[in-house]
């Protein structure tokens, strides 16, 4: 918790320093980076989420760590990479999960099916909205519009079985002939 607060302080400090006037000698700051700094400065990070800022400034890439404190995926450690192109916030960032997990809305390559990152994106959304959206994926996995059909079918047919399968997969086990990454 302390670390989180320090991070947030740091970020606010950075945002203030960077402000609207880039330090002399620096390359001009892109619109994307300006907006991203504002996003980070105004973040209100939920307790089960943390963000790696170390790597975010240079290449507009954020690493988002989520450890749900309830639901099917409780206590799993999930690390996402969010890449922000120069078109942000007109276009959403590309978000991928870095481990292979058993989830109806995340495929085996880590592609994420989240409406606000696709058809429901709006340029008034920000990093905060994305954090919350990703967290919701774990709290309320959705069997409609699946990226992992096997997982979606189990969830729809038998939530108890789904719970067991998720538990197995999180420990690095095999579900339906497919091995998953150990994230617990």
């Amino acid at each position: 918790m302390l670390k989180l607060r320090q991070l947030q302080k740091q970020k606010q400090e950075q945002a203030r320093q960077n402000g609207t006037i880039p330090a002399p000698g620096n390359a001009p700051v892109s619109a994307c980076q300006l907006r991203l700094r504002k996003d980070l400065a105004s973040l209100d990070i939920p307790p089960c989420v943390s963000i790696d800022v170390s790597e975010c400034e240079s290449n507009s890439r954020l690493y988002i760590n989520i450890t749900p404190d309830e639901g099917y995926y409780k206590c799993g450690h999930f690390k996402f990479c969010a890449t922000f192109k120069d078109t942000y916030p007109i276009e959403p960032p590309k978000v991928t999960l870095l481990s292979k997990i058993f989830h109806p809305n995340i495929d085996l390559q880590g592609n994420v099916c989240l409406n606000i990152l696709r058809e429901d994106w709006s340029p008034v959304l920000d990093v905060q909205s994305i954090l919350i959206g990703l967290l919701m994926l774990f709290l309320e996995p959705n069997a409609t519009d699946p990226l992992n059909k096997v997982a979606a079918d189990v969830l729809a047919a038998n939530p108890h079985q789904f719970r067991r399968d998720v538990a197995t997969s999180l420990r690095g086990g095999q579900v339906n002939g497919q091995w998953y990454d150990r994230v617990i």
Partner: protein
Amino acid sequence: MQLEFKKVYPVFSWSWDIPGDDDADREIGDEDLCGICRVSYNGTCPGCKYPGDNCPLVIGECNHNFHVHCIQQWLATPTAKGLCPMCRQQFSLKRGVAINEGQVEKLANLLLQPRPAALAADDQDMMMDQEFAVR
């Protein structure tokens, strides 16, 4: 009858439209920020240097305000579907608002300027032209 003016006391009055003056805009935040770039309405979009006439504001029929350059970029994308980013209603300029009147011609000119091939080929272009017309 003859009148003689001994002194004149000119009196002026003025008023201005303050964007974000009604409740619909409060959801953007405490300050009046463009929801897209998060820069003050009085400042510029990230692509501009000088505020004011060079980087004007527009007010939507839905009472959501943006830098004209910000909303234009958004409406040029297929994802936008011509919708306001805040309330997802069809975006059009509000009628009879002074701040918009000044933009009609400018907007028309902006829309006439050649756009990148990727955008020009886009179906959304047609839509954008329509949406930007003041009804």
